[in-house]
């Protein structure tokens, strides 16, 4: 569809690319989501070389490329490392209407942060260092948003 754009006579041609994607999770991420879905448990994994515990877990250590096969059960509580409150809309991609809060939470037992939503929280009173707890959905599908958000513990 072509549209005239004012006096310049410039036209624009509108189109849309609509493609559906199915991403393979791989075995490590599959287990991560299965544990969340079936048991409301959050697992990370540990690098045998660096000793760091990562969440979400991944097959290869991001720092030294060692294969990480040791899964570590983590608490569903943690400490807020950084956060923001998103106050602008972007169509299609936002899990809720703005304003909403995002944060990086270091779960107890993990060495790295876990990025997620913050909820049941006063958006103007969020502070780094807050203690938070995961809130799971009642009906879970096996993805990140089975955790609805993290709320003050």
């Amino acid at each position, binding site marked *: 569809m072509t549209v005239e*754009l004012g006096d*310049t006579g*410039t036209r624009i041609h509108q*189109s849309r*690319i609509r493609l559906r*994607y199915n*991403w393979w*999770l791989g075995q490590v*991420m599959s287990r991560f989501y299965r544990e969340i879905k079936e048991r409301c448990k959050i697992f990370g994994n540990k690098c045998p070389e660096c000793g760091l515990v*990562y*969440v*979400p877990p*991944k097959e290869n250590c*991001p*720092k030294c490329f060692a294969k990480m096969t040791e899964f570590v059960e983590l608490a569903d509580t943690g400490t807020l*490392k*950084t*956060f*923001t*409150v*998103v*106050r*602008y809309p*972007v*169509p*299609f*991609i*936002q*899990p*809720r209407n703005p304003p909403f809060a*995002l*944060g*990086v939470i270091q779960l107890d037992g993990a060495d*790295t*942060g*876990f*990025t*997620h*939503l913050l909820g049941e929280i006063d958006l103007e009173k969020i502070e*780094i260092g807050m203690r938070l707890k995961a809130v799971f959905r009642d009906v879970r599908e096996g*993805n*990140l*948003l089975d955790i609805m958000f993290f709320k003050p513990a």
Partner: protein
Amino acid sequence: MEGVAIIGVGQTRYLRVNPNSHDEMAFEVTNKALEDAGLTIEDIDNSVTCTNDFWDGRTISCMTVTDATGSSRVPTTNVEGDGTYGVLMGLMRILSGHHNTTLVVAQSKGSISIPGLITNAIFDPLCERMLGLDAVSSAALQARSYMAKYGITEEQCAKVSVKNHKNAKNNPYAQLPLDITVEEVLRSRMLADPIKLLDASPVSDGACAVILARESVAKTKCEKPVWIRGVGHCSDTYHLGDRDLSDVGALASAAKRAYRMAGIKNPREEIHLAEIYDAFSYMELMWMEGLGFCERGGGGSLVDSGFSEMGGPLPVNPSGGVLSAHPVLVAGLARIAEAVLQLRGEAGDRQVEGAKVALAHGIEGACGQGHCVYVLQK
């Protein structure tokens, strides 16, 4: 082995909406760079284009600009990343001995789509993307982390915006030359805490081209070649949670390599100006630290001291920087182009007097995961 110089540059004016198409912009800057270099397209023996399939809405997006950049005539490749990486590719092609002159062209039109959708696709579809993260919200996470760690204030960040938009008034290419105050920045609409509208770069259309040449060509064809004395690039890890967002280690590593190559031991003293990738105001403070202009955490004090102002010891972004114009992929290349103009003494009202050594910098990915640093010398 020979040196490599930049002998021609061309830029479009950076606009919110450029009525020209991708290939028209690429054609414009290709011709501008050729004219600037005193060459014709026949003199170009290979090219590197910088295009991105998401931003262009087209698979094999480099096809859009193959004809417009004369790339159908010569060996060519396409770097899908910031223009600073494209120049690296062009540089390596000359250093290999296979080529004499490389044309590097970057273009993008932020106006044709919704930037938040495009930058959302940077994030891991398996565990990050569904949170609605995009360039702004992820930058906000980084800004907060950095500011909390070192006690950087929103005022200090705002000073960067004030400085750069004011500098942009001297840059005929810049999209947003503005006279603003710190108070106006602080009062501007909050996008994602702590990033406000005037802390953020705009959405832009634009293109930029540079021509690289081996020493024998540069010396015979160009009155004022600008030499690439050092280059380095480096990447942090990927998941936001796995990174220390307040850390600038990847930038420091890239800079270290560039400085070593260039023989720079004290960047603060030996560099006369820097054009760096300030997609957000806080980033300029972080990148100054990573480049070694001050110690880690010292970015706020540095901007307070006037160090980076025009007329200060080391002007940063005399062009107005990325805060004043942000055509993605192009912005890093534009930093190089601006540094070239400075070193030639052709920067008009934004000229840093006596500039002999300049630093140019580009970033890649979310929150500056990747960095590419250049030391240029006249």
